[in-house]
């Protein structure tokens, strides 16, 4: 039902998420933001079971901010991703596991941009591109085919629009709009939302 996508470039990470908050068959909200800002250069995208997403993501968010307050510097994206995975793993075999699928995107001044894929079984993988949701079945092969490690930002946005065009054509559910953000060494930037009426390269 929900869709997340991330594409890493040589000096940036592009991420997008759909805007629908649904409850069974009803769209309760059309402008819901699924990205959580963990720090100035790290975003956590979170989808999954209704309450678990917000509870878990806010827990991680506050702990990352607490780390900065206690130690005076921010966690790197890799450290934040491993911290998140560790929490997922701890709760996995408890009575109350968190059923959430995550993408963590960040820019480290030393290591550059990075994108981490995590799922509800607490797996963690650093990947150049990733997607979550049923839409991932339709779009991962487009990413496989067209992704290059040296994409420019415009090319990455075009690749994203190709993926969304495919969703609009073949995915059974209506995902009218998507939030898009870019992380680079200057921080997190909002890009223009992509909606159903946006002109895309493929028809």
């Amino acid at each position: 039902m929900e869709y997340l996508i991330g594409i890493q470039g040589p000096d940036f990470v592009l991420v997008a998420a759909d805007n629908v908050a649904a409850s069974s068959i009803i769209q309760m909200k059309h402008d819901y933001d699924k990205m959580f800002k963990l720090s100035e250069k790290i975003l956590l995208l979170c989808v999954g079971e209704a309450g678990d997403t917000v509870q878990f993501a806010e827990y991680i968010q506050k702990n990352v901010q607490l780390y900065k307050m206690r130690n005076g510097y921010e966690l790197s994206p890799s450290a934040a991703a491993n911290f998140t995975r560790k929490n997922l793993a701890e709760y996995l075999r408890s009575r109350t596991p968190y059923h959430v699928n995550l993408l963590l995107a960040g820019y480290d001044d030393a290591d550059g941009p990075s994108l981490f894929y995590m799922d509800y079984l607490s797996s963690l993988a650093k990947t150049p591109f990733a997607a979550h949701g049923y839409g991932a079945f339709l779009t991962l092969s487009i990413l496989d085919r067209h992704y290059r490690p040296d994409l420019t930002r415009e090319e990455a946005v075009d690749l994203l629009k190709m993926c969304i065009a495919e969703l609009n054509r073949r995915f059974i559910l209506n995902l009218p709009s998507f939030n898009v953000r870019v992380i680079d060494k200057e921080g997190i930037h909002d890009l223009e939302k992509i909606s159903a009426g946006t002109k895309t390269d493929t028809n």
Partner: protein
Amino acid sequence: MALQDLCRSRDFLLDSKETFFGSFWGNMTSRSPLHSSADFFHFYTPTAKYLGQSPIEFGQVRDSGAAVLRTDPSCSLPTSVAVAATCSQSVPLPFPMSHGTTTLAFVFQGGVLAAADTRSSCAGLVECPSAQKVLPIHSHLVGTTSGTSADCALWKRILARELRLYQLRHGRRLSTAGAAKLLSHMLHPFKGTELCVAATLCGWDVGGGDGEERSNRSNGNSCGPSLYYVCSDGTRLQGALFSVGSGSPYAYSILDQGVRWGLTAEEATAVAREAVYRATHRDAYSGNNVDVYLVSSGGWARRRREDLKEEYYREKARRERQQEAAGTCVTAPE
């Protein structure tokens, strides 16, 4: 619990410094119900051991994990009930509970309008034709309830109590966003159990100018109408229009056509009434009367409860007059 805290003048902020969820889960199952410390969020959750000791027959846990899934087709939250049944032990309920209702709320320039039907149903019967589903919490906050009536009534009272204590302790009223977050966190330990509360909190915030900002509120104090949807499965959404319950799809379609920011209070009341009326017409589990509340800067105001049966006959008469005026002999479907 909280009253003891007040009398002993302990600052609850100091006691709740360990309020990460990690410590919640660790403590939850080991607390006895009479634990008397000032634990703000530590509500007792029944565990298998306790239920095994209970003399009440229906409180025993089935070991197969087979769900107490009700075959109620109008359950307002089918997906969440299915998840609850599979990921936790089910406790058999004393009698089958049902979630039929139509409630709605929306924001417009005159404040927040909340409306609901008044039929309380249970296992296919109308258990009470004049229930109250819109409950005032304080002078500027009203909540609509959907789900299990008992759970909603209880949790609204708990929320009212906690908001009043917050006001006494901190000298200012908690915003609607804060109240929604508070309710959501209080309901979180019960996720996966049969507790079912789906509420919309409709309030008028008198914000601005307060020096201390709590870190758990993302946007600052904003003055004006505010609407939040809180559900026992953990959902918490801020929005301008929500409808909850088995009749909500029918209400949504009327509201999506008629609700705008610039409505007057009379127009807004008319749209809300119409939406509840259409939903009660189509949904078997909604009906009887409609309550309409308006929350504005001066507080909440309630319109007199109206019997929708009268509306049905009025509309039928209107249609007949229209047909006579049109002079056709084709009867409109009712």
